[in-house]
């Protein structure tokens, strides 16, 4: 719509678009204000208004660079009508809806219709409604302006048109509570043209198809007004108005519907989208609540596990104490008998007493392991560092294990390649580590083999390694063997008895010294356990 058209529209409703910029916005605001003032004063001269209108339009158009055209028109002595204009903003455009307010305007009825249209549009624009509310409002306003007998609003849903709102139509539905119009129908085809259409004298013509498409049972249908709902080229729905008996829609009605729909589509679409968003939001909220509940549950279970763990550790510590008490008797008395303090023993008795003592010591070792583990878990393990000679410490351990080694005819070699033999660490725990690794090596070594203990110096650390030629450890177990309770074979055929705690404690002790521990091994090919300790501690 250009200026000329705008100015020469005498009897019709017109829509005029401006691009939104600050200048035009300002001008329009001013125009609206002044217009309001003029219109509120009861007496005015047509000529005055005419001049005023032209001036102001000129002002607006100046910002659009179309002034030259206006002047030419004026010279042609064209009569510019007085218009009632509604300005409203739509996305990045300003729309001006105008219709003539000419005093010589004949059809007061049409004028009334136009006024109502503008008013309705203004109302709808200003409300924030839910989707079905706005559709109902639209139908009500249209009824007020155009008057119809029945109305339907359909929206495109996938491949069909689907009923979204209606008035006075529910009794006429063949398909319960719904109208579904397929793509192949004539309505759909007409819709694609994006033009409003009137169908008159329905019963008598081929337009019978309309009723079939809509699957409606109407007694005396007469006139249909079909108005597409679209934003730009995107057609998303249609409003269908129906008049019965001998009533029919006029071109005026068509024009009004065009203006009405084009002015309210954005509101309608927004409302639909808002509803969709609201629904999705509530689904998200539900999901979120579910997840929150699940999280709470997990947190609760976690709390329980932590508590159970704490109780377990307390129990372990307590039990290890309780178990030691009778163990004291077993180990003590058997040792006293072995020492023959209170008299001699025959061979069998001596043998048995030795067995009792050894079993007692074994049991004590396991209880100590359990206690160590519970200390580690409760973060109560402590190390007491002092300076000592590693060679002496290791030789002592070799001594203790010599009986074990000799039984299997295993030779243990100590290979030293360091200059600095004094280290700052926990003496007892160091020996515990060495004992664990050495006794493991002996346990898993076949008879008549050799075990090497190697010491090397690297930076400020000593690298210790215990090397055996036993059954070896497969690569996927290299990390797991240091896990609590882990045993390479925990089945009923386990050959080497163990609690699975030794390496776990060893690892913890090494790491408490800021050292590292690892294994290099292949199945069937022996194993070398390495650990490092800083010299200075």
């Amino acid at each position: 719509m250009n200026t000329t058209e705008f100015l020469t529209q005498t009897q019709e409703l017109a829509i005029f678009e401006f691009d939104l910029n600050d200048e035009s916005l300002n001008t329009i605001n001013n125009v609206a204000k002044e217009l309001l003032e003029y219109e509120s004063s009861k007496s005015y001269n047509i000529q005055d208004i005419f001049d005023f209108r032209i001036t102001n339009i000129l002002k607006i158009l100046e910002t659009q660079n179309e002034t030259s055209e206006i002047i030419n028109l004026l010279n042609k002595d064209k009569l510019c009508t007085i218009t009632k204009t509604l300005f409203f903003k739509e996305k990045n455009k300003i729309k001006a809806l105008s219709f003539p307010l000419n005093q010589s305007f004949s059809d007061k009825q049409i004028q009334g219709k136009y006024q109502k249209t503008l008013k309705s549009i203004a109302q709808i624009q200003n409300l924030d409604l839910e989707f079905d509310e706005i559709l109902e409002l639209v139908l009500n306003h249209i009824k007020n302006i155009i008057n119809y007998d029945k109305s339907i609003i359909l929206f495109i849903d996938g491949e069909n048109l689907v009923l979204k709102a209606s008035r006075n139509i529910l009794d006429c539905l063949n398909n319960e509570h719904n109208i579904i119009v397929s793509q192949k129908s004539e309505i759909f085809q007409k819709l694609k043209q994006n033009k409003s259409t009137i169908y008159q004298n329905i019963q008598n013509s081929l337009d019978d198809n309309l009723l079939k498409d809509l699957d409606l049972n109407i007694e005396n249908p007469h006139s249909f007004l079909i108005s597409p709902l679209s934003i730009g080229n995107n057609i998303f729905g249609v409003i269908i108005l129906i008049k019965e008996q001998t009533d029919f829609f006029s071109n005026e009605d068509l024009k009004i519907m065009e203006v009405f729909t084009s002015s309210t589509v954005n509101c309608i679409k927004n409302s639909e989208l808002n509803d969709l968003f609201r629904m999705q939001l509530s689904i998200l909220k539900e999901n979120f609540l579910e997840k929150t509940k699940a999280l709470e549950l997990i947190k609760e279970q976690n709390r329980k596990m932590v508590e159970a763990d704490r109780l377990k550790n307390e129990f372990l510590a307590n039990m290890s104490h309780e178990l030691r008490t009778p163990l004291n008797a077993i180990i003590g008395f058997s040792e006293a008998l072995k020492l023959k303090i209170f008299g001699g023993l025959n061979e069998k008795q001596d043998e048995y007493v030795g067995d009792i003592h050894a079993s007692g010591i074994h049991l004590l070792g396991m209880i100590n392991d359990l206690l160590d583990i519970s200390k580690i878990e409760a973060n109560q393990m402590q190390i007491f560092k002092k300076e000592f000679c590693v060679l002496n410490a290791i030789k002592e351990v070799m001594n203790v294990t010599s009986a074990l080694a000799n039984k299997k005819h295993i030779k243990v070699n100590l290979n030293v390649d360091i200059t600095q033999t004094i280290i700052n660490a926990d003496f007892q725990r160091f020996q515990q580590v060495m004992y664990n690794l050495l006794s493991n090596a002996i346990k898993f070594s076949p008879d008549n083999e050799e075990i090497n203990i190697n010491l090397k110096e690297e930076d400020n650390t000593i690298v210790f390694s215990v090397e055996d030629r036993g059954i070896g450890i497969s690569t996927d177990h290299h990390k797991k063997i240091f896990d609590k309770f882990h045993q390479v074979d925990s089945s009923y055929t386990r050959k080497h008895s163990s609690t699975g705690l030794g390496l776990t404690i060893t690892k913890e002790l090494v790491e408490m010294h800021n050292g590292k521990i690892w294994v290099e091994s292949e199945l069937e090919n022996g194993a070398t356990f390495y650990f490092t300790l800083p010299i200075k501690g």
Partner: protein
Amino acid sequence: MDTKHHNGTILIAEDNPTNMKLIKDILEFEGYNIIEAHDGKAALNMIRKCKNDIDLILLDIQLPEINGFEVIKLLKSDDTTKDIPIFVVSAHAMETDIKRALNAGCNNFITKPINLESFVDKINSFFLHAIHK
């Protein structure tokens, strides 16, 4: 000390030498003839070899090569060995283990650590009962 005189040959399947020594010594003192087996495979081999001579099997569960449960199963599935009585002697004392052993077909389940006196009683009364059959 004089050994007592009972008649019977017992096969003991036990991998821990101390445990083996304990039971063997006591039972030999009671006069029984003892055959030692140190793992499941050896136990099976020996039983199959001397099946007619073995009167009772004392079987540990925790055994290398083939475990005690498996041994019971294999013995029971062989007609020539299925009737040799088996006492399980094990430190595996969970109810599930006991049930499993009894379901597999063993005649008795003795948990370690053993009560020596009652253990000996059980063995003696078993043989007494067997003789009177």
